[in-house]
């Protein structure tokens, strides 16, 4: 057994499954922030991301025995968080939440002086991202926010590079339109 930092994810998962529940805290500390930016971009706000990450971490604990490759806990947890983000989108659709509410939710903090223009454009891009389909938004976020290659994204979410590119290219066109509208 190594120290907290050197213990592998697989060791920790096996330890938790053996009954050392508190060891799950090591995984929580290790991964609570890792995909927060992805969740925030997918859901449109930091608060929504926090709820999603919290739910996904609890969910991952509930399903821990189903983690087939404990050494790849990170990839498995990402898929649970991803499922949570898509479920949130479905819930928002079914509740027909108003765009006004969404606009408010995705408004970021105000910024000062010389950065105003960039901050405004960022907010506009953030707003435009929320108008994409979740599938388009996800590939955009993974490539241009998380800066993963198409190949890495394909491996992570189980899609082909060709289908990812198709989604992305549609997203580019849609964003171009939306940015023009929102500017």
């Amino acid at each position, binding site marked *: 057994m190594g120290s907290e930092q050197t213990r592998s994810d697989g060791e920790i998962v096996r330890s938790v499954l053996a*009954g050392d529940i508190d060891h799950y805290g090591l995984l929580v500390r290790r991964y609570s922030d890792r995909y927060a930016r992805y969740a925030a971009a997918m859901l449109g706000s930091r608060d929504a991301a926090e709820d999603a990450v919290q739910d996904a971490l609890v969910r991952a604990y509930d399903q821990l*025995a189903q983690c087939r490759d404990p050494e790849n806990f990170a990839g498995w947890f990402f898929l649970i968080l991803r499922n*949570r983000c898509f*479920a949130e989108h479905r819930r928002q659709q079914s509740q027909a939440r108003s765009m006004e509410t969404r606009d408010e939710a995705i408004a970021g903090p105000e910024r000062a002086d010389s950065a105003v223009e960039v901050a405004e454009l960022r907010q506009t891009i953030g707003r435009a991202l929320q108008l994409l389909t979740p599938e388009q938004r996800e590939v955009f976020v993974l490539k241009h926010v998380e800066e993963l290659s198409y190949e890495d994204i394909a491996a992570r979410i189980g899609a082909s590079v060709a289908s990812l*590119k198709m989604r992305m290219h549609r997203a*580019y*066109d849609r964003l*171009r339109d939306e940015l023009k509208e929102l500017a």
Partner: protein
Amino acid sequence: MTEHYHPRVKQLMDGELSLSELPPELRAEGEAALRWLATVDRTPIVLSSNLDERVMAKVRSRLPARTRVLDLRRRIRPWVLGAVAAAAAVLLMTLPRESRVRVPVVAIARAPVHVRFVLYAPGAGRVAVAGTFNQWNADAAPLAPTRRPGLWTATLPLSPGQHQYAFLVDGRRWVSDPTAPTVDDGFGRRNSVVAVNPQTERGRGL
């Protein structure tokens, strides 16, 4: 009306071309695209410092992880029937035209089993099925329209185990399978469930 980026500009945005590789007439478009792409917010998000305490408080209030999974299996089992896929297909053929029905296909096998998903969705332009078996990829498993108007179908190989899924109609509307059992997805929605049981489970009265 949507204005499309030129395909070579999209390659530029993908990082597969440099600006100098674009023909001169596309450079202004390419520069504008790169400008807004560079502005995308990549600031790391740090969540509340007490998030781990909140998660662990919830975790400690639950059953041990391994116990929970066994308990879940016990709860889901009763709906599992020992039917084979062929029987399901026969039943499907007898369904009335109007029914929005897909039969929950349950097979006993070690190897992947081909399971037929059916949804009656009149007026739909496209239907797909996404679930744990394809990482909820909405593009991975489109259903094909059948001769019966409004009836869509797809046959997919499923490995032994329980699979959660939902249909996506017209890329926008998530629909659970009207006749399959459902489970809470943990986030306030219901996912449909289909099970393919490993051969070793035979005879346990599932």
